[in-house]
Every structure is written in C-alpha cells, then in structure tokens.
C-alpha cells in the first residue's frame, strides 16, 4: 500500500467528491489535468489544502504526490494554510494604487487589528493583497471570498466589515438546532 492510498482511507474526500473528481477526469485525456479542478473542489470544502488532503487527491487521481504538491504551491489561489471565514483580497495594482488603495490597506489593517497576510483571532477575517482583479474602472476594489466590492472608501469598508460580522454572528446563533427556537433572534 502506498502512503497516498493509506491516507485516502482516512477519508477527507467524501464519496460525492470522489464521484465529482471521476467526472472531472473524463474531460481530459490525462488524469494529471484534473489536479487543479480537484484541488478547487477540496478547498471549497475545507477552506485550505492540508498535506493530508493533497496526498488524498494524489491517491484518488493515481498520480505522484509531487505533481499535486507542486501545483498546490505554485498557484496563489490555493491556500496551503488555513484562512479566515472571510478572505479579504485588496487589489493594490496600478489602477487601484492611483486611487489610493494603499491608504485602504492601512485602514483595513487598523480596523481588523492584523497586518496584511494575517487572520483575526476570532478566525473571521484574513487580510491579503492581490494583483489586478480586472475591475480597474471601479477602483479601488477588493474581493471578499468570491464577491467583488468596488469604488471603495474607508467608510464603505467599515460598513462592509460590520455587515459581515453581523452575518457571522447570525450564523453562529442559527447553527445549533434545538435551542428553544431562538434562531436568528436578537441576542
């Protein structure tokens, strides 16, 4: 038994995910081409790609572990470390720079109490800077998880952060079923 197949028995990839990966491999003449889509699938579920997940993907695709590892570490969108529930990606490339994305970065760092590249203690927010996201006519802009926020100002950023915190608090109250019907009720 190889190391990869031993780990795959631990089961990070659900039956449904394995089925999806098999479907994906059908799109390409080689199983290697399915590495990137499989990593996206795993990251969607776990938020980041642990070594265990990488080994299991290699096992399912039946490709050498190094092939998966080199892809996971080359592409910046694959997180090999855990990230917060809301991953803030502020564009600082030229069009955003010209409209003072730099001061928005300082503002975000102040409001969140973390430096760029760090995650808040409560695990809600990770702050990153990214290269151009193709929204230059609405600069300055940022992406949080998948959503674009455009034409930003410091005040708007404060409102967005408050909205996300409120959403996280609401969700925290609704995740526990059977707590006397208090779902979504004000604290």
């Amino acid at each position, binding site marked *: 038994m190889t190391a990869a197949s031993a780990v795959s028995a631990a089961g990070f990839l659900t039956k449904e995910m394995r089925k999806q990966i098999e479907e994906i491999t059908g799109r390409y003449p*080689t199983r*290697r081409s399915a590495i990137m889509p499989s990593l*996206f699938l795993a990251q969607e579920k776990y938020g980041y790609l642990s070594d265990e997940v990488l080994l299991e993907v290699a096992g399912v695709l039946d490709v050498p572990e190094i092939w998966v590892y080199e892809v996971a570490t080359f592409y*910046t*969108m694959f997180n090999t470390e855990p990230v917060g529930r809301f991953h803030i990606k502020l564009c600082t490339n*030229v069009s955003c720079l010209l409209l003072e994305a730099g001061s928005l970065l300082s503002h975000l760092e102040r409001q969140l109490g973390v430096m760029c590249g760090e995650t808040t203690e409560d695990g809600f927010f990770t702050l990153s800077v990214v290269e151009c996201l193709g*929204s*230059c006519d*609405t*600069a300055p802009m940022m992406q949080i998880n998948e959503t674009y926020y455009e034409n930003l100002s410091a005040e708007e950023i404060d409102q967005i952060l408050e909205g996300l915190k409120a959403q996280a608090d609401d969700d925290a109250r609704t995740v526990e079923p059977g707590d006397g019907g208090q779902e979504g009720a004000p604290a």
Partner: protein
Amino acid sequence: MTEKVLLKNAETPDSHGIGAYEASGGYQALATVLRDYQPDELIELVKDSGLKGRGGAGFATGVKWSFVPKDPALKKYLCCNADEGEPGTFKDRAIMEKDPHQMIEGMILCAYAIGAETAYIYIRGEYTLSAKRLEAALKEAYDKGYLGQRILSSDVSLDIYVHRGAGAYICGEETALIESLEGRRGQPRLKPPFPAIEGLYASPTVVNNVETLACVPHIVTRGAEWFRGIGSESSPGPKLYCLSGHVRKPGLYELPMGIPLRELVEEHAGGARPGRKIKAVIPGGVSAPMIPETGLDVRMDFESLAATDTMLGSAGVIVIDDNDCIVRVITRIIEFFAHESCGKCSPCREGLIWAVKILRRLENGEGKEGDLEQLDFLCEGIFGNTFCALGDGAAWGLRRALQHFRDEFVSHVEKKECPFH
C-alpha cells in the same frame, strides 16, 4: 455614434442568456458556416477580414488557424484564453459576464475551421461570476444542439469545458496556459515548436483570446469587407478599450481600432480630473511602456503603437496625472512582474527582484548615485534574454519610464525623497 458590435447586447436584460443572444441574430453564423463553408473557406474568410489577436500580440488570427496541420488522423485542440490578468484590463470579463454566447459561437466556428472536437476555456480563477455564466451558457448551447455530437444535425461535433486557473498571471502566456491545462505549474515552453504544431497534449492547438473569438461570428454574418471597413487598414475591426486611473469617466469603451489615444482619453473618458493634467498614459496594460502626454496623438492600433516603442497589448489604458509619481507607479509595476515571474529564467527571476530593491530605495528617499545606471543595466540584461514576454515587458516598461521621465528619477536620488509623497 459608433455602432456597437461586441457590446451591442451588453445593456439588454439577461444579455448573458441564450434567448437574448438568439434574438440578436446569435448562432446564425454557425448555421451558415455548417451549411455553406468548408473549413478552409472559413479560414480564408477570417484571413480576409484582417482580424488580429486581441490578447496582446496581435498575430493574424486566420493565419494562426492555417498553421494547424490538415491531417484528419491528428487530434486537434482549441483553447480559449480567458486568463485575463494584464493589470488595467477588464474587457474579456465584460464579454463573459454580459454576452458569453458570442465567444462560445466563435469557439465553435474556430473548432470547425481547425478540425478540433475538444476545446477548453482557460479562465482566471478569480473570475467566478464569468465562470458561472460560461457554464450556464455552455449548458444552454448543448441543450439547443449547438454543442455536443452532430451539431445542428451535421457531422461536426464539439465539447467545450471550462478550466479554472488559480491566480498565476503567467498562464495568460499561451504555452504556460497549455502547461497549466496539462496539470503542471504554469511555466512557458520554448518555441518552436509552436502550439499550432505541438501544443496541448503534444497535439496541434490554437490558443485564441476571448475578444478575438467574439469577433468571428460577426465576420461570418456581415462579411470580411465590412470588418475591414472598421478601424485602420492594417488593424481593422471593433475594439474594446479599458479606461482606468486618473480620468473622469473610467470604463469600457467599444470604438474602432486606430482611434487616437488622445480622443479616447480626453473625449470618451472625459480627460483629467478637475485641476489636474495628464502626465503619462499606459496604452495596453502594464506590459506596454507608458507614453508621456506629448505622445497622446498616436493611434490605438498594433502598428502605430509599435512605431512609438510601446504596444497596444490588451488595450488596458491607465491614465496617470501630474499629481502622482512615476517612480511609485513603475515600482508597483516591477513588483507585480517580480511576483508573477514563474522562476524559470534567471534574468527575469533574479533581475526583477534586484530592480524592485533599487526602485523601492529610490521611492523611500534612500537612492544612491549609480542606482539609475544600475537599473539601465538590469533592463538590458533582462530584455531579450528570457523564454517568454513577461521579462521583456517588465524591462521594456522600466527602460522607457527611465528614458521619458529621467528627471523625476534623478530628483528622487538628489533630493533623497519622493517629491510627490
């Protein structure tokens, strides 16, 4: 007012759906081609139109298609390059979000011309809305019989799959895109062999940009002569221009190829903001060297911009006004290229990091005598000495900034501070 071609549906409700596309004449080009054209005739039509690739390099599209071997025993591939990552560029995103069927129909036509039965859309990973719209549009096209087996009851078949990139700018380079699609790190290959001979999975492959493919159905429907009648003689057709930076009306503008840059910036995008003057303009994404204000009368086509030692590139036009600092801007550009260098060639990998160190020093008021000469030397060492155009673009842009705005650089060294910040 100029007739809109590529953006003609952009403002209609549900413009991304197949209903809106068909209502505006969509997929009629496909029916016409399958009925009336042999593959070679379609290639000739695209050659006659004079269409040049809108991804940046400006290579003649029909000629590129004609390089694919005709041997029916060889499997061929089409890749749509939707890895739009050139800073200052957001035109392909607009097509994919607002009118994706235009590009899909262009892909089916291209696949027919080159004999490909499998095609991939390599889309940058951050464009999640575009990817969703494409997936939905592909499903609609399959349901209507425009994709899959025996398209419109012909003996032509095609499958198209969406493949998401994951944040590497270099994958916009066609051989790096192919490497990435094969499941590897995105590192460019040495050319030749060119992809048309040996590309994806070592098979003949055409890689075309989103906007390029979106032009093709219009060429079929309205003819090569109509297409040649728009824009300049050597670079015909409609063009999407992305305006950003210090202008009053940033946005996406569809205008003919060859429009003067000054007209684009001052009339269409409203010119500089109140009380400011334009200092420089980047005409084609950050790989294209900036032009000082005095050079704005240049026409926006491949040949005119090349003649002034810059390029049309992706037509990502970034305007910089007199209140900002050229050293700050070029520092950010070289930081970008240093970050996105794939690491394969040492002139690019090492040279750009070295240049960033010097540029940051200048901007922080810690510049030393000899720093500018060292930058000149680095540009020479990188340009022309790398596998792909990433290192070239970086060194070219830096060299031209150093030439056009030498005084500003010198002032950073002499005053030991940035005069602007």
